[in-house]
């Protein structure tokens, strides 16, 4: 009975979504205030019903209700409670429910935090969110209902994919989805603005915090996913250019471009039609990612449920949402007024350059991801675009991005005096050049130019931003001066600095781990010692242990360097009871400057094992960099500017032109 209730609330949510899509929109054209105002309560109602659905599905997992097909496929009585909960979104149907729930949560957030927005705008934005929601709820109810039942109920469930039984993966999909879905807000704002023909600075200012929050979620989600792949897949890699990974990376790239482009539109009123296009693209790529993952048109190591029937539905949905919004764009964009003029050497130009690079890189990733499909469809033969191609494209675009970052953050809007910033950046440039050349010395890298390039660029990004901070604080005294600046409206500036320093940290990590990482695949008997990058790994043999829903062989290693004990590592090879797939649990001794990583391969008889030993220098810096980027984003959205503008426009509620925001930097 209770699962039927979940099904029922899902249907109710769909009804509300349809109402939310239609009524406020019509109201916004007929100027019926009550119809427009209904959008907020409708968003709340939809959210409440979807939350009930999600709670009921969770309850079914916790109570092992195997009469629900989805629970029977992914749940199990022996599954620890944490994974029973994460199993709710561990497979297709449930992850869609989570998607829909989050979309509703974002709508509620708009309803709650939009008191300073014109009602007309709010109602159109929520109406667009409602339309997106209709698509997802229909998709669920028609092709992938998580509450479908089966009789008789099986005694035991099929269990969550062991690969997903991990604390990191319990929170990775929700974060990622929050990011994907969050771009729907920027999308809805863009569409609403196109409908009303009101694309101005205030539109950009309203969209900015939402976009940044979504971007933060996506960033953290990707970082967590990469970290998970690193320790769980047991291959020591942290990024595989897998279609599923690309599906999250493309919206991230475009989202990054969008954040920067919105800044230009807000401050200078320029790039309006480009910004709108980015807002549409970021969300479109999120939807496309869903299509690629769910439809099975591409093969992937992630290989979730693939079903052409569902693919047809999502494709139709894509056609309506993306096609429809691009059609609206074609119709409306020619009437968007141009923004303020700017010189060739100005912050606008540099930001446009970075935008184009990000967009080109995203297009290349899209091309690489779809290439097998395109080749196949054109009957040109079958190809696979592998790791090397993506890496080459990465090396082709990102160095220019890093170069532009250093200049862009320092230059002025509208017109930058080249001689001035040459003077400012001279020191940073020389330091970076020296640092890059120094890292080419035989003791470090023996002339590996990639190391020189990476280290030089990282130093460039870091030093140019530090010069920037120094200049800003020139007339302020010491830490107190910085703190005052930070508190009084400098948060978005320091957020930007922190995020960009995160990029520098990321570059260091990726450069060092790619060029100095060592890996050995060895055969060892108990008592054997293997050396890798100066570390001695002593193998002490393997014992059998048992977990709640698996048995495991657990190896034991003592690691020492120069005779001193460094760590004891205990990698496992698990065999899960239900899905009898072997899982490698790598053991990692982590450190800021290096990870030592051991994973068990196969038993080779007589107590011998095949093993993989890795030395991963500075690998943590990759995720640390991503984390700093996310932190920078959080800092930026908490800027006083957004709060003051809210207070200010609250006084002049619902006027067409909100007062221009105080400019922070």
């Amino acid at each position: 009975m209770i699962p039927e209730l979940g099904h029922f609330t899902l249907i109710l949510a769909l009804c509300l979504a349809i109402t939310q899509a239609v009524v406020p929109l019509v109201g916004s054209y007929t100027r019926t205030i009550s119809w427009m105002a209904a959008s907020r309560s409708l968003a709340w109602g939809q959210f409440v019903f979807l939350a009930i659905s999600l709670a009921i599905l969770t309850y079914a997992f916790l109570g092992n209700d195997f009469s629900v097909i989805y629970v029977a496929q992914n749940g199990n009585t022996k599954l620890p409670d944490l994974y029973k909960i994460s199993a709710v979104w561990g497979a297709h149907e449930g992850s869609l429910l989570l998607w829909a729930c989050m979309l509703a949560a974002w709508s509620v957030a708009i309803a709650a935090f939009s008191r300073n927005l014109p009602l007309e705008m709010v109602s159109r934005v929520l109406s667009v969110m409602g339309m997106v929601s209709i698509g997802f709820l229909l998709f669920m109810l028609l092709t992938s209902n998580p509450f479908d039942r089966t009789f008789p109920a099986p005694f035991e469930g099929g269990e969550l994919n062991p690969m997903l039984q991990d604390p990191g993966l319990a929170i990775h999909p929700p974060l990622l989805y929050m990011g994907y879905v969050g771009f729907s807000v920027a999308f809805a704002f863009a569409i609403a603005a196109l409908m009303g023909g009101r694309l101005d600075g205030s539109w950009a200012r309203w969209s900015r915090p939402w976009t940044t929050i979504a971007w933060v979620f996506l960033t953290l989600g990707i970082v967590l996913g990469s970290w998970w792949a690193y320790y769980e897949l047991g291959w020591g890699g942290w990024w595989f250019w897998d279609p599923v990974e690309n599906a999250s990376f493309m919206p991230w790239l475009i989202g990054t471009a969008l954040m920067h482009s919105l800044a230009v539109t807000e401050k200078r009123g320029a790039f309006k039609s480009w910004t709108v296009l980015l807002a549409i693209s970021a969300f479109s790529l999120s939807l496309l990612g869903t299509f690629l993952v769910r439809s099975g048109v591409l093969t992937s190591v992630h290989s979730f449920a693939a079903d052409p029937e569902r693919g047809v539905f999502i494709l139709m949905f894509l056609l309506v949402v993306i096609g429809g919004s691009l059609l609206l764009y074609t119709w409306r964009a020619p009437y968007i007024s141009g923004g303020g003029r700017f010189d060739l050497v100005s912050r606008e130009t540099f930001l446009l350059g970075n935008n184009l690079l990000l967009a080109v890189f995203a297009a290349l990733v899209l091309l690489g991801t779809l290439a097998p499909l395109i080749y196949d469809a054109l009957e040109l033969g079958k190809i696979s675009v592998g790791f090397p191609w993506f890496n080459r494209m990465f090396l082709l675009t990102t160095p220019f991005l890093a170069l532009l970052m250093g200049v862009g953050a320092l230059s002025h809007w509208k017109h930058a005096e080249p001689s001035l910033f040459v003077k400012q950046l001279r020191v940073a440039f020389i330091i970076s050049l020296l640092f890059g050349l120094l890292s080419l010395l035989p003791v470090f890298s023996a002339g590996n130019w990639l190391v020189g390039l990476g280290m030089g660029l990282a130093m460039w990004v870091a030093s140019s931003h530090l010069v920037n901070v120094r200049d800003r604080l020139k007339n302020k005294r010491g830490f107190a001066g910085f703190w005052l600046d930070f508190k009084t409206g400098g948060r978005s500036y320091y957020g930007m600095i922190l995020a960009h320093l995160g990029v520098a940290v990321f570059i260091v990590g990726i450069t060092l781990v790619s060029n100095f990482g060592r890996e050995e695949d060895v055969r060892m008997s108990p008592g054997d010692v293997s050396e890798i990058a100066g570390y001695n790994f002593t193998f002490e043999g393997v014992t059998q242990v048992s977990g709640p829903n698996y048995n495991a062989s657990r190896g034991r290693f003592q690691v020492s360097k120069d005779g001193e004990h460094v760590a004891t590592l205990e990698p496992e090879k698990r065999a899960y009871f239900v899905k009898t797939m072997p899982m490698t649990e790598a053991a990692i001794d982590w450190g800021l400057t290096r990870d030592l990583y051991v994973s068990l391969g196969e038993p080779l008889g007589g107590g011998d094992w095949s093993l993989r030993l890795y030395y991963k220098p500075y690998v943590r810096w990759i995720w640390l960099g991503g984390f700093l980027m996310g932190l920078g984003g959080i800092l930026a959205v908490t800027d006083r500017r957004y709060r003051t503008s809210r207070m200010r426009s609250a006084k002049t509620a619902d006027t067409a032109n909100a007062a221009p925001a105080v400019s922070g930097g």
Partner: protein
Amino acid sequence: MNQYLRYSIPLFVFAVIAAFLYKGLGMNPREIPSPLIGKSVPEFSLPTVEDAETIVKSDNLLGKVYLLNVWATWCVSCRAEHQTLVHLSRSGKVEIVGLNWKDDRDKALSWLNRLGDPYVINIFDKKGRTAIDLGVYGAPETFLVDSKGVIHYKHAGPISMELFNETLLPMIEDLKRKG
């Protein structure tokens, strides 16, 4: 009118992508019915991974039932599949011929040294020419070939023990019986 044209570029790009996606739905990338099923392995003459001087020709492989496995060290799924291949070759149920695809000889050799070598012969297809003739979609891919050199089955993606026992093994036994 021209202004509309300029702003409709994104729409056209999307239309093209959507057309490909629609076409893609009709194709199943995992079990592409290879046009080569029922036909002979395309002719080739390539060196082995172990030795650039030793040339293997397609005729050299006649006379036995074998699995032709396309692999590469840059391919993540191949790594996952490798344990299964080593296990299979030890079981003696079937011989496996490797086609090392667009790879680096040193990397391939150290991979085999470290992870074990399940292959009776390992062909080195640096340029990927033979892989194209075979219609390889992506690594790993596995073909079942009979003693006359005719392809009977193709699997894209890593092979599992389940797939081997349920699909491949009955076909292999059948082919061996027929000689």
